[in-house]
């Protein structure tokens, strides 16, 4: 009985003391937004569409981001300019569904779609969370500065003829008899 009383009391007193001692422990609270947290460059926040170093849209509407998206929140339609360059006719992300998993960025073969450290995306109206290409497209290259998909790809586009891509020989003359 006495032991029980003693143990109970000790336990309560020790608990009280330990909690009291937290008076001298520094608070964990981060005082956002007065204090802005450090955002890592690879943070997976707001999604943007970037441009290649020549200032053209990087997105070629290949649909890989859309199919990689686990919540199916990306929808786009391919179209083509007169010279054969592919680009999205529309590109829509429903951010109210997006889970910022970054699979779209992983899937993108042209470094067009990128996640940025911006996480302040709250809206009062859910409809405002649906972003179109005009809202997503930025003027710069984003995280990857030098990559230009069409410089590597074999497809002919305006300003780049067959055989002018990286590591390409001039087009073959099929009429030639030379070996």
């Amino acid at each position, binding site marked *: 009985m006495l032991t029980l009383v003693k143990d109970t009391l000790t336990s309560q007193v020790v608990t009280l003391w330990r909690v*009291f001692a937290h008076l001298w422990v520094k*608070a964990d609270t981060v005082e956002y937004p007065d204090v802005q947290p450090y955002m890592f460059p690879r943070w997976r926040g707001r999604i943007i569409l970037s441009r290649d170093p020549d200032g053209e849209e990087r997105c070629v509407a290949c649909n890989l981001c859309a199919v990689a998206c686990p919540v199916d929140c990306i929808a786009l339609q391919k179209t083509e300019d007169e010279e054969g360059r592919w680009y999205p006719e529309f590109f829509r992300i429903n951010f109210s569904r997006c889970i910022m998993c970054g699979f779209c960025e992983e899937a993108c073969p042209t470094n067009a779609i990128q996640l940025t450290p911006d996480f302040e995306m709250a809206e009062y109206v859910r409809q405002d969370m649906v972003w179109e290409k005009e809202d997503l497209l930025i003027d710069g290259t984003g995280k990857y500065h030098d990559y230009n998909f069409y410089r590597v790809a074999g497809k002919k586009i305006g300003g780049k003829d067959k055989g002018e891509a990286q590591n390409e020989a001039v087009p073959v003359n099929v009429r030639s008899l030379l070996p």
Partner: protein
Amino acid sequence: MTFEVGSGLSIAVILTTVIVVAAMLIWVERRLLGFWQDRLGPNRVGYFGLLQVVADMIKIFTKEDWIPPFADKFSFVLAPAIIMSVILLSFSVVPFAPGVGVVDSNIGVLFVLAMASLGAYSVMLAGLSSDNKYALLGALRAAAQMVSYEVFMGISILGVVALSGSFNLREIVLAQTDGWYIIPQFIGFVIFLIAGVAESHRLPFDIPEAEQEICAGYHTEYSGMKFGMFFVGEYLGLVLISSLITVLFFGGWLGPSFLPPIIWFVLKASAFIAFFILMRAALPRPRYDQLMTYGWLFLLPVSLVNLLVTGVIILSTQ
């Protein structure tokens, strides 16, 4: 008008101070809890969040004064008024300092106990009139808890009364000039402390309100200022119990003369308030049956023995 015991000015000042202190305790408690839980607590409104109370007041005053259609309207409104009034009335017999107080009653201790008993009505009425199962459960618990712990509370004070030979609180303070009753009446103090917490149903004995079990207990249906009165009433109770401990066991305003007596009183009472908040931060809530068993099977015998021993010692030393 002079500032003396029982004067109108004195009454006004004490009433205002007590209510303001109780209101400020909302902020104090939240900040202290914050510190003890490694966070900051409210710090956005005013310096250090001091104006948080004002913000809360604005909010609580502008809220819809809603009475559930199924409630018994009269008793529903009456209940929060009772708790406020009985606790404020209890403050009338508390001697804050020489010359500071409302009345010097010869039956001060009994008055406090009487008022505390009345407080049980408030809680019971609130729970009954709400016509809500959680409220009723809360009220049942509160009634049982308050009635039970009043017994030990009363018995634990009797040691002090016996030592001082008076029910007058001011005389009890003066009787401690040679030594605070905490020393001869340590057991009485501990029982009083525990019973006090249970009487004001603060954590860890907030069983009548236990959010996790019964929503918010007897005041589940309350909102707006009527809830505010229960809320402030709880803090008033906290101030009252701290003041009584100071008066009964820690020599009231007595202390070295480099500080004025009222300051001593405030300091002592504040320490106990802080202690109560620390208990809230640190201790978990017992089960309802544990609380009752503990009271009747442990506190009651111990308090009786304490009274008996005190009596024996007093008689033998006369």
